[in-house]
């Protein structure tokens, strides 16, 4: 038990030993030093005049933005429909690509641990670590602006996420059921269909709804780089400083996000 002596020579209980305290103190020092250095860098590239002016600017923007321009909603129905399509079709497309990748990546179903599994894991990591906006940027410059670029961006970004969660679910399945199916003389595909699929189906449904919810959020901003959806309207309203329209779009986005989360929570609640 770590103890220290106070001035009267009594022993006092302490949470950490001396070495632990020193290490901790040093770690805190390092963190503070790193933070201060980073802060100095940020401060260098900041125009502080604008920052001191910020409350006035914020109040000014707020004053212009409110009340939202409600009539503008009539021009938003098509973008909302596009946004919904980007999220939903993107998720469906992503799942179609994620399922084979997940089966190739799970250590108990992969055909080859040495050759195939690393490739599948590589696909998962690289699609996951790049944000959907960057994918959208890339696809817009490849196939041109529009809903399709956004849809593909969302689906590529989702492959890694869905495949990762799915392959973890596959690795956690109950091996006894597989053995039972194999014992009846089932072929490899029959084992897959009757032994593995029923076990991961609830996880699969949960993952897809979860990802759909995230994709609703992400698809609302894809338009900023020209990939369709409500973000296009947001961008053009911002460009002409039409703050009441921006306010309405933000309200629509918030509603969409809340509805998406509600639906996904309901569906996941029904599955589990």
């Amino acid at each position: 038990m770590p103890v220290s002596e106070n001035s009267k020579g009594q022993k006092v209980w302490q949470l950490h030993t001396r070495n632990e305290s020193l290490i901790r103190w040093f770690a805190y020092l390092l963190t503070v030093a790193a933070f201060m250095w980073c802060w100095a860098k940020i401060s260098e590239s900041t125009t502080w005049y604008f920052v001191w002016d910020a409350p006035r600017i914020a109040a000014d923007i707020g004053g212009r933005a409110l009340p939202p321009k409600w009539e503008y909603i009539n021009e938003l129905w098509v973008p909302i429909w596009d946004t919904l399509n980007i999220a939903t079709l993107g998720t469906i497309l992503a799942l179609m690509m994620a399922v084979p990748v997940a089966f190739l990546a799970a250590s108990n179903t992969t055909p080859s641990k040495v050759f195939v599994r690393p490739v599948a894991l590589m696909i998962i990591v690289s699609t996951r670590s790049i944000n959907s906006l960057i994918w959208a940027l890339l696809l817009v410059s490849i196939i041109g602006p529009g809903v399709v670029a956004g849809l593909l961006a969302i689906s590529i970004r989702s492959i890694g996420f869905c495949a990762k969660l799915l392959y973890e679910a596959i690795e956690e399945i109950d091996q006894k059921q597989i053995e039972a199916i194999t014992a009846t003389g089932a072929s490899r595909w029959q084992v897959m269909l009757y032994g593995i699929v029923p076990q991961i189906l609830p996880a699969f449904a949960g993952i897809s709804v979860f990802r759909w919810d995230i994709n609703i959020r992400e698809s609302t901003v894809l338009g900023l780089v020209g990939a369709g959806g409500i973000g296009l309207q947001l961008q053009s309203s911002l460009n002409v400083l039409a703050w009441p329209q921006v306010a309405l779009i933000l309200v629509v986005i918030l509603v969409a996000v809340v509805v998406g989360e509600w639906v996904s929570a309901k569906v996941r609640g029904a599955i589990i």
Partner: protein
Amino acid sequence: MSDVTLDMRLGKPWKKPHFIKNPVTRWGLIIGALVYISFATGSLEVNWSRVSEGLVRGWNFIAAFATPDFVSRGTDIRDGLIESVIMTITSTIVGIAISIPIGLGAARNIAPLPVYLVCRGIIALSRALNEIIVAILMVAIFGFGPLAGFITLSFATIGFLAKLMAEDIEDMSRVQAEAIKSTGATWTQWINYGVQPQVMPRLVGLSMYRLDINFRESAVLGLVGAGGIGATLNTAFDRYEFDTAAAILLIIIATVMVLEYLSGVIRKKVQ
């Protein structure tokens, strides 16, 4: 015994049970999904000539991954990357510092109802707003540069960390907390010795995970002018300099992989 009589004796052959048991809901969902998909795909407009033109460019981009160009825009990449890292570190630290009190306030077993509602409100707001949208507003208010990105990421970190931390505190073992309380500890001592040790491992793990997320997000904030490597990446795409873009993407992927590995090691160590 012939096959026919065996079948008759066994009755109906076994069939795999359906995932959704109620046939009405099942067929309703299937038909609804088909109708929706046909409508949705019908409303897609694809400009095939533009696509075929772009496919060449797409192939160039994929080929660029074989020859990424780290050098010709080296200083831009380096500056952007340093800015991204700076934003990541500062926003994660500030985000953790702010989300600890909010997380404590959002745990129903620690905080009184009014505090709980306020903290839950902050969390809900932070989670509902997409980082990019917050960044646009922050750029409009604070001007271009990493400060806007820093504020955006800190704000996003609060929603994430405080929510998960509050859930963890609500699940903690009450026995340990009670034991500390019974020694006559003050409120701060109670939090420090009764609650903190129970949630600390998870908090460290989540912080590392958030560091990883913040880095990934900081790579896109530059698109709306909030600093970081995103601005460099955007310029590279706009000029069709795919080899530079490939280099930046490779750096992002490598950094994320390293961070993920590190956070895995650290999480194993604290748990």
